[in-house]
C-alpha cells in the first residue's frame, strides 16, 4: 500500500483532483452539477443518479498552457462509464482534437478511477469507450495524451484498454490496472485461476509496482498532489515523437513468444524477462504455435471468412486469427476473423476469445495492410466478428492483455484514419473487450439479424454478480432498458449499426446469402470512401437521432457551447 502522505490525491474527490492538477485558480468546470445532465438510465432501474454522472470536465492551464482535465469519480457506481459520462469524456477529447488541429494547443489529461463500462448502461458504455478510444488515437497525433491512475478503484475493463492507448501513464503503488477485475476472473475461470480475496496476489499481478517494472506504465509516483502535478507537467515537457506501446507490435509479440504458458509463471520472472527483451534485437516475425492445424472446429467466424474471402485454407500469423486478401467488385479487401483454436497455447483463449496472442496478431495484420498501402489506394478492411469475450485469466492480466486489446484497437483506428474503409460484419457474438478490440473501431458496422447475434459488455452471469442482482432481475431490467439487452434488435435501436441484415443463414450461408452480404459490404465500403474518417456517423443515423443516442448528442452539444465560453467573455 502507498504510505500515508500529507497531501493525498487519492483522498480527494474527482472535482478536487482536477483542481489539484490544474494551475491554481484556473479551474473552470464544463457541464457541472447544475447543468442537469445526469444519467437518464439509472432512475428507471431504481438507482440514484449523480448530478455530474460521475465525470468532471475541467478546463484551465497546466504550467501556463491551455488544458482539459477529465476526472472520473470512483466513488459513484465504481467509476463506471455510462451514456452521459462517456459522452462527456469522448466529447471533450473530440473538442481538444478540434482545437489542436486548428493550432490551438490544448493539453489533454485523464484521471482514471473506473471499473470500465457501467453495467446498468452496458451497450452505451461500450459504445462510448470505442468513441473515447478513437478520439485518443486521433488526438495523440497532435499532442501527448497523459493519464493518471491514482486509485482507489484503479483502472479496469474497457477503460484499461483506453488507458493502453495513452502516450504516457502515471500510476501510484496503491492503484490497480488490468482488463478484468479479480472478481470477474474468479467468476469466469474459477478460484484456482484467480482468488479475488488474495490481496497480495492481486497487487503483485496488477498493482502499480509490477506494472511499472514491466513497462506497462511510464512512471510510478507516491500519492502526493505535488508529485503527481509535477509528473503531469513533465510528461508534456518530455514527450516528443515517441512510439506508443500499442504500436510496438513486433516487440510485444516477441516478448510473448518467450512465454511458455504450459509452465507456471510469476511476477518476478516477467519483470526479468521484460528487461531482457527490451534490450534484445526484435525479429519481425515470431513463431508461437507448434500445433498442426488439424480438425479446427467450424464456427461462424471461420465459415464467413471462407465464404467471403474465397480462401479455402486460410493462413494467419496464428491459427486463431485468420486473414487474407481478395477482390470484392472493384475493391481490394483484407478480411480478418478471430476463430476458436482448441489447441491455443493459452488455455483461457481456446473458444474464440480475443487473448494476448490474438490482440497483437490482429494489430500485426492490420498494420501490415496500412504499411503496404501507405503510398496510396488504401484497401478496405473487413472484420468478421464472432467473439464470445476477451480471455479471462491470471497469465492474461500479468502479461497485459489490456495492451494486446488496445493494440488491436489502435491498429484498426490507425487504418481508418489513414483512409482504409474499415467495416465490421457481426455474424455471431460481439461481447465486451473482444468487440472493442475486434470490430468497434470500424467506420461502418453491419450485423446479421439472427438469434445467435449478441452484443454486450459482459456475460449474464458476471454482470449479475457484479451488479448484485439475480439473473432473473438482470433480465427483467434489460426489458426496460434496450442498452442492457443482449439481442441485436435492441442493440440496433442505439443507432450504431449501419445496417441490420435480415434473412441470412448465419451458420451455413448459401450462395444467395453470400452474394447479399458481399453487396452490402460493397455498399458500406463505397459509402465510407466519401465520408469523414472518424466515428461521427454513429450519431447521425436515424435511430441515433430518434432516441437511441439522445443523451450522447445533447451532452456533446452543450459541451461545445461551454468549451470556449470564457474566451467569449473576454472578447465581449
Amino acid at each position: 500500500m502507498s504510505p500515508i502522505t500529507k497531501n493525498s490525491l487519492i483522498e480527494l474527490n474527482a472535482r478536487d483532483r482536477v483542481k489539484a492538477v490544474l494551475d491554481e485558480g484556473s479551474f473552470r468546470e464544463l457541464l457541472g452539477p447544475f447543468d442537469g445532465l445526469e444519467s437518464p438510465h439509472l432512475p428507471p432501474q431504481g438507482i440514484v443518479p449523480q448530478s455530474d454522472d460521475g465525470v468532471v470536465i475541467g478546463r484551465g492551464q497546466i504550467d501556463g498552457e491551455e488544458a482539459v482535465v477529465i476526472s472520473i469519480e470512483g466513488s459513484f457506481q465504481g467509476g463506471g462509464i455510462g451514456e452521459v459520462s462517456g459522452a462527456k469524456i469522448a466529447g471533450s477529447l473530440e473538442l481538444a482534437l478540434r482545437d489542436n488541429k486548428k493550432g490551438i494547443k490544448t493539453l489533454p489529461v485523464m484521471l482514471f478511477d473506473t471499473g470500465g463500462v457501467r453495467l446498468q448502461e452496458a451497450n452505451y458504455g461500450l459504445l462510448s469507450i470505442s468513441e473515447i478510444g478513437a478520439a485518443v488515437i486521433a488526438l495523440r497525433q497532435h499532442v501527448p495524451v497523459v493519464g493518471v491512475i491514482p486509485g482507489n478503484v484503479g483502472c479496469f475493463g474497457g477503460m484499461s484498454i483506453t488507458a493502453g492507448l495513452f502516450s504516457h501513464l502515471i500510476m501510484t503503488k496503491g492503484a490497480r490496472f488490468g482488463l478484468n477485475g479479480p472478481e470477474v476472473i474468479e467468476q469466469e475461470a474459477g478460484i484456482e485461476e484467480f482468488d479475488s480475496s488474495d490481496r497480495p496476489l492481486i497487487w503483485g499481478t496488477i498493482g502499480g509496482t509490477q506494472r511499472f517494472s514491466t513497462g506497462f506504465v511510464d512512471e510510478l509516483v507516491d500519492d502526493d498532489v505535488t508529485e503527481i502535478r509535477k509528473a503531469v507537467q513533465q510528461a508534456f515537457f518530455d514527450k516528443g515523437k515517441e512510439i506508443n506501446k500499442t504500436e510496438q507490435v513486433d516487440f510485444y509479440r516477441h516478448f510473448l513468444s518467450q512465454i511458455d504458458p504450459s509452465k507456471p509463471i510469476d511476477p518476478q520472472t516477467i519483470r526479468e524477462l521484460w528487461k531482457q527483451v527490451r534490450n534484445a534485437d526484435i525479429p519481425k516475425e515470431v513463431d508461437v504455435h507448434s500445433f498442426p492445424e488439424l480438425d479446427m472446429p467450424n464456427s461462424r467466424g471461420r465459415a464467413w471468412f471462407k465464404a467471403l474471402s474465397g480462401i479455402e485454407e486460410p493462413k494467419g500469423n496464428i491459427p486463431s486469427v485468420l486473414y487474407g486478401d481478395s477482390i470484392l467488385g472493384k475493391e481490394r479487401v483484407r478480411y480478418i476473423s478471430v476463430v476458436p483454436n482448441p489447441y491455443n497455447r493459452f488455455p483461457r483463449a481456446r473458444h474464440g476469445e480475443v487473448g494476448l496472442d490474438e490482440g497483437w496478431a490482429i494489430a500485426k495484420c492490420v498494420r501490415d495492410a496500412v504499411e503496404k498501402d501507405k503510398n496510396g489506394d488504401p484497401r478496405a478492411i473487413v472484420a468478421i466478428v464472432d467473439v464470445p469475450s476477451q480471455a479471462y485469466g491470471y497469465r492474461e492480466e500479468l502479461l497485459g492483455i489490456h495492451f494486446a486489446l488496445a493494440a488491436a484497437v489502435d491498429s484498426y483506428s490507425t487504418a481508418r484514419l489513414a483512409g482504409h474503409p474499415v467495416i465490421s460484419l457481426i455474424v455471431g457474438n460481439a461481447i465486451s473487450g473482444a468487440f472493442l478490440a475486434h470490430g468497434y473501431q470500424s467506420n461502418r458496422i453491419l450485423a446479421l439479424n439472427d438469434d445467435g447475434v449478441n452484443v454486450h459488455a459482459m456475460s449474464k452471469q458476471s454482470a449479475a454478480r457484479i451488479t448484485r442482482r439475480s439473473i432473473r432481475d438482470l433480465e427483467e431490467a434489460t426489458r426496460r432498458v434496450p442498452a442492457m439487452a443482449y439481442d441485436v434488435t435492441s442493440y440496433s435501436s442505439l443507432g450504431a449499426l449501419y445496417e441490420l441484415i435480415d434473412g441470412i443463414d448465419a451458420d451455413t450461408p448459401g450462395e444467395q446469402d453470400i452474394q447479399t452480404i458481399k453487396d452490402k459490404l460493397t455498399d458500406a465500403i463505397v459509402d465510407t470512401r466519401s465520408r469523414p474518417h472518424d466515428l461521427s456517423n454513429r450519431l447521425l443515423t436515424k435511430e441515433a437521432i430518434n432516441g437511441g443516442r439522445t443523451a450522447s448528442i445533447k451532452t456533446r452539444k452543450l459541451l461545445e457551447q461551454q468549451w470556449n465560453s470564457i474566451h467569449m467573455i473576454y472578447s465581449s
Partner: protein
Amino acid sequence: METLTFEYNATRTIHQRSHVGVVGSGDLEVLLEPSSNGQAQITIRTGSEGFGDAWKAVLDRFFLVNDIAAKVTINDFGATPGVVNLRLAQALEVSQDVPNHQK
C-alpha cells in the same frame, strides 16, 4: 429508489449556489440554489427506502435553525443522519461565501 419532498418557510437568503458530496456508499450529494419564493424546497432521491421519518427529523431541525430560501436537491446513497446534517451544513457554508467578483 424513493423520492421525498419537503417544504419549509424561509426568511433568509443565500449568496450563491453550492454543491458538496458524492453519491457514494454512505454519502450523498447536496445541491443548494438560491430561491426567491420565500421557501426551502427539498427534493430527495434515496436508494434506501422507508426512512421518510428520519429524513423529516433531520430536515425539520436543520431548516428551523437555518431558514434559508433555497432549492435543495439531494441524491442519497445510504448516508446516516449525522452525515446528512454535516453535508447540509457544508453546503450552506459554501453558499454563504461571497463570490470572488463581489469582494
